[in-house]
């Protein structure tokens, strides 16, 4: 005896039915945090061809493999020098608490890398704790001021973000506590829109002049980064180079956000893998590799990801969501007085569970990472967070050097595209590397074997 045959529609499956019914009930699109959840071709689809008979490896645990990274060598009198090519991506005070920003700075300083401010300005805590701090100049200009420009180590002009290129931003009122409101010059509790366009310039010709203004204000000392969300990357990177950027940051569609429409997160922009290849092609086309540095972000998680990004031509990576996860994002517990305390009930109250949570927009983060709530933010002890993040960054860097040594490189920046193959036709085409076991790069002239 069998029950009735239930046949689910491919087009109108249960998530689609949920979406339509929720839209019908509320009249609003969904806003959520973090990045794309759909699977897109990514660094997992690439593999390394380590040394064997035709290449000579370094001894994995003994021989030196350099990780020093210089950013901003084109025009700035004081380029950024990092010990590792793994940086902390821009995340706002507002999205994150001041305690979290403090933790990021402490960890980054310990491992010798940089942190980046975000929409909402620079907090005293992060400036104090972060030896190398990149100050973002965003369309909203929330909290943007010349004193912090002078206190920063580099300026990053944000054109767009991988999770929402062209979309501006939103900080929902529940996260706008008195300090956030004061820093952004807005009333408490108001939903704060961040504009999608800069207020005082439009287009690449203006950007040339804007960059020169920032150079004049900083007396040509600090590097100027330009960050773009990954869409028409080849052209955008070329325009940013022409505009005078020292460093270009390309943020792929897997990049995270504190709060953005789901339709944006899942349907706008291109994968990091494809964006990186286009960015490198643009720099090659202009013969600017090594003159203008490239930072790639958007879903970078591990040392393998970093190694593959560097092999494809990035000078460094920026990590956002991985950093939050290291601090405890999506963990089932938080640490108080050295003990793990369950956060499961708080996840359940949000209608989610560890491993699935993307409720940064609510400000009710069960582990105290993406919150401005006075009680919840205490769940993240900056010292504990800094230790965990330091461990994570250190691990990622060790994985990176392990792979580089196996490929015979004395410097992680010597990793090259020739060290890579792809597992899928899509990844081969996007990354511009051969399908494993062949010399075939889809879309490129060559002799398929």
């Amino acid at each position, binding site marked *: 005896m069998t029950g009735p045959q239930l046949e689910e529609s491919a087009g109108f499956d249960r998530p689609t039915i949920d979406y339509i019914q929720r839209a019908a009930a*509320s*009249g*609003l699109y969904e*806003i959520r945090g973090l990045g794309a959840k759909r699977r897109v071709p990514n660094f997992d689809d690439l593999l390394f061809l380590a040394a064997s008979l035709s290449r000579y490896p370094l001894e994995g645990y003994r021989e030196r493999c350099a990780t020093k990274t210089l950013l901003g060598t084109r025009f700035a009198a004081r380029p950024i020098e990092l010990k590792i090519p793994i940086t902390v991506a821009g995340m706002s005070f507002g999205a994150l608490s001041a305690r979290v920003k403090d933790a990021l700075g402490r960890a980054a300083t310990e491992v010798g890398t940089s942190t980046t401010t975000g929409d909402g300005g620079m907090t005293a805590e992060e400036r104090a704790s972060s030896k190398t701090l990149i100050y973002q100049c965003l369309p*909203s*200009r929330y909290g*943007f*001021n*010349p*004193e912090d*420009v*002078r206190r920063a180590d580099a300026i990053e002009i944000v054109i767009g973000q991988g999770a929402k290129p062209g979309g501006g931003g*939103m900080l*929902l*009122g529940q996260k706008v506590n008195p300090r956030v409101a004061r820093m*952004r*010059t*807005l*009333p408490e509790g*108001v*939903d704060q*829109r961040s*504009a999608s366009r800069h*207020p*005082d*310039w439009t287009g690449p010709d*203006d950007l040339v*002049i*804007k960059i*020169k*203004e920032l150079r*004049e*204000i*900083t*007396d*040509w000392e600090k590097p100027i980064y330009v960050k773009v969300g990954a869409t028409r990357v080849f052209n955008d990177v070329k325009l940013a180079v022409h505009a005078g950027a020292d460093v270009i940051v390309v943020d792929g569609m897997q990049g995270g956000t504190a709060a953005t429409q789901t339709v944006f997160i899942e349907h706008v922009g291109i994968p990091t893998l494809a964006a990186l290849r286009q960015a490198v092609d643009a720099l090659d086309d202009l013969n600017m590799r090594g003159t203008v540095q490239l930072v790639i972000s958007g879903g970078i998680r591990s040392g393998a990801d970093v190694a593959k990004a560097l092999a494809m031509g990035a000078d460094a990576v920026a990590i956002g969501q991985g950093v939050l996860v290291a601090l405890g994002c999506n963990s089932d517990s938080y640490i108080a007085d050295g003990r793990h305390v369950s956060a499961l009930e708080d996840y359940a109250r949000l209608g989610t569970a560890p491993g699935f949570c993307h409720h940064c927009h609510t400000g009710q983060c069960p582990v105290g990472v993406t919150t401005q709530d006075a009680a919840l933010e205490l769940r993240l002890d900056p010292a504990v967070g800094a230790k965990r993040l330091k461990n994570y960054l250190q691990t990622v860097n060790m994985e990176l050097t392990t792979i580089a040594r196996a490929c015979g490189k004395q410097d992680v920046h010597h990793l090259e595209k020739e060290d890579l193959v792809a597992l899928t036709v899509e990844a081969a085409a996007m990354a511009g590397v051969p399908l494993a076991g062949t010399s075939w790069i889809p879309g490129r002239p060559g002799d398929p074997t």
Partner: protein
Amino acid sequence: MANLRPVPEAREFDLARGSLRDLNLYLHKQAAADGVSQIRVKNPDGAHSIACGLNADLDVQIHGHVGYYVAGMNMHATVTVHGNAGPGAAENMMSGRVHVRGFASTAAGASAHGGLLVIDGDASLRCGISLKGADIVVGGSVGSFAAFMAQAGRIVICGDAEEALGDSLYEAVIYVRGRVRSLGADARFEPMADTDRAAVKNLLAQSGHAHDPAEFRRVASAKSLYHWHADANQEY
């Protein structure tokens, strides 16, 4: 500063003979150390970023037309342009005073936090966009989208305003004397109170413009878009 040195007694820079870099470097690092507080700039010839990033009580008089971002991010200084100004005049100013004797192009006073920007002539599109606390007085008229998303501060417009005045305003207040082509989303006319008339009188006096405060109308946010909700439709 090999090609450009201030004449000590006149404190004058001639940009036809020297570079913008030398001028700004002098204003940033040397003027205060030299005890110089008044600087005259000749032949700006539309150069961009003149006197940007100042952080001292200087009086900079620029004789001629300037390009983008004159007095950008100004703190403490008084900068006067005896001519017209390009886009972004006094953008992100924190304090001090910037006075454009002629006309100003787009985005004058964009995201300025403090201080006073006076434009004797007309101001083009997006004057006072994202304003964060500064005061702006425009002697003439303003183009479309003036005070777009302005968060705090006051804008006095002695002439007319084009389309979408005050679109998506937050807490900034606009006082307009002439015709308004249209208001932007969430902006509305409100009654003038005594405090508004006093504010207008004070700002007109500071800027050297003589009008009767009773001739001005107040525009402020209706605050209907302060929270995301279904009935806002596409206006949000």
